[in-house]
């Protein structure tokens, strides 16, 4: 059990990557704070965790709202008295070309991803600093380094998360707080399947035609991203600071 008795807060854990990460953390002995903007989804993940014999609480909050984030952390600390691990995962993928992205969509994309990551980190720092240790894992994307045409706002947000990760890492390691990132490639989640309206082999082919050959010739699964999060949350990554691990099937090398 790599995360025995650690308290982990995962944003956007109502589905997809966040949910898979939360369940993987549960198997490693962690107690979970499950955040999602949709209350029912957070509750469902908590139920799944409890069915595994784990401990979890659900907090519905929009991470782009700093007041809601403040409240979320206060509630989490009230129940668990600390937070050891923060996974800034809440986000959304949207395909839109530049002329069609209106002000609201642009701002929303940056707000959920970048503001959300910042607000949560800002709340977590004093808590982690007080105990002299903590692990923060930010969900970047291959879009952070290789901009995805047709998702420029998403790419900008993920790029911002990457730069924030490196700056925060250097600033916070002296307080015992590790900050690293995961940059997944294309992972088959509802968040990807629903907007595109395809799945499986057909989806993999479409993605490769649009964004480049995936060496492993398939999309990834959430179970292939969750172990990366476990690795970065545990002592196994004790010499990794401000770095990124990219499970992308060899699409970006």
């Amino acid at each position, binding site marked *: 059990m790599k995360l025995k008795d650690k308290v982990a807060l995962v944003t956007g854990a109502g589905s997809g990557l966040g949910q898979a990460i939360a369940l993987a953390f549960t198997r490693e002995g962690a107690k979970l704070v499950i955040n999602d903007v949709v209350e029912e989804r957070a509750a469902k993940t908590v139920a799944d965790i409890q069915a595994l014999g784990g401990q979890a609480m659900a907090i519905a909050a929009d991470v782009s709202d700093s007041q809601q984030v403040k409240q979320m952390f206060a509630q989490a600390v009230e129940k668990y008295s600390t937070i050891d691990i923060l996974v800034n995962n809440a986000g959304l993928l949207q395909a839109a070309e530049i002329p069609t992205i209106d002000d609201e969509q642009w701002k929303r994309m940056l707000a959920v991803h970048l503001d959300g990551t910042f607000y949560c980190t800002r709340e977590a720092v004093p808590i982690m600093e007080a105990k002299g240790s903590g692990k923060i894992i930010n969900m970047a994307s291959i879009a952070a380094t290789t901009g995805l045409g047709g998702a420029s706002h998403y790419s900008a947000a993920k790029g911002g998360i990457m730069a924030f990760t490196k700056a925060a890492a250097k600033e916070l390691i*002296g307080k015992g707080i590790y900050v690293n990132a995961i940059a997944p490639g294309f992972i088959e989640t509802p968040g990807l399947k629903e907007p595109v309206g395809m799945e499986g082999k057909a989806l993999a082919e479409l993605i490769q035609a649009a964004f480049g050959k995936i060496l492993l010739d398939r999309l990834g699964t959430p179970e292939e991203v969750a*172990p990366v999060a476990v690795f970065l949350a545990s002592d*196994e990554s004790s*010499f990794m600071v401000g*770095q990124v691990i990219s499970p992308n099937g060899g699409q970006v*090398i």
Partner: protein
Amino acid sequence: MTIPRLSLDGRVAIVTGGSRGIGRAIALGFAEAGADVVVAARTVADLEKVAQEIEAIGRRALAVETNIAVKSDVDNMVAKTLEKFGAVDILVNNAAINIMRPIVDLREDGWDKVMNVGLKGYYLCSQAVARVMMEKKSGNIINITSGAAEKAAPMLGAYSISKAGVAMLTQLLAIDLASYNIRVNAIGPGMVKTGFSQPMWGNPDMLKAIESTIPLGRLAEPEEIMAVALFLASDASSYITGQTIYVDGGTLA
């Protein structure tokens, strides 16, 4: 949903430079995870010691005196492995030579020594092992590069250049071998506490100077590199290929 564990049960690993430092830590760590391990290096006495340590852990071991710069030695290493274990599932290219001299002062034979072991040797080992793995349509290659592959280390000129070469070798091998179900990745350590790097930090003033350039403020233990190698060798990294993971306490962040 099953999350893969960090297990190497039933697998056979070859670790070059396995007699000391990072190589020895990886050999022992892989044995703890359930692998049988072949350790290859030029120093037979040290090799035999590590082989005994592997057997004490409860796994099978083989020590093969090998100069990876020499093709017949490399072919012999693979042949002996197949003779004893019948397979090669994992190759860790780790052996290296370091000559601390700026490029303008480096003698030709010094250049040749560093390149022949550190770059040509990695190509020779990769080619020999890949051919076996391609038959089985399964395998895993891990190249130890260095932070020096990205950020020039003036006192380690030839070494820096050889590691930059290994970084590109990693990408090329990943592309060539993906369709054979062989993943190829690299680890770029920062400064690790081993005999190999001791000339650089043995002196207390030099150690202080180096530590001040590392955000984490200390050198890595070899086990902290081993942990990343284990992650890359196991199924936990099944969607990761062609990647370099930097493990450097924040130096490159």
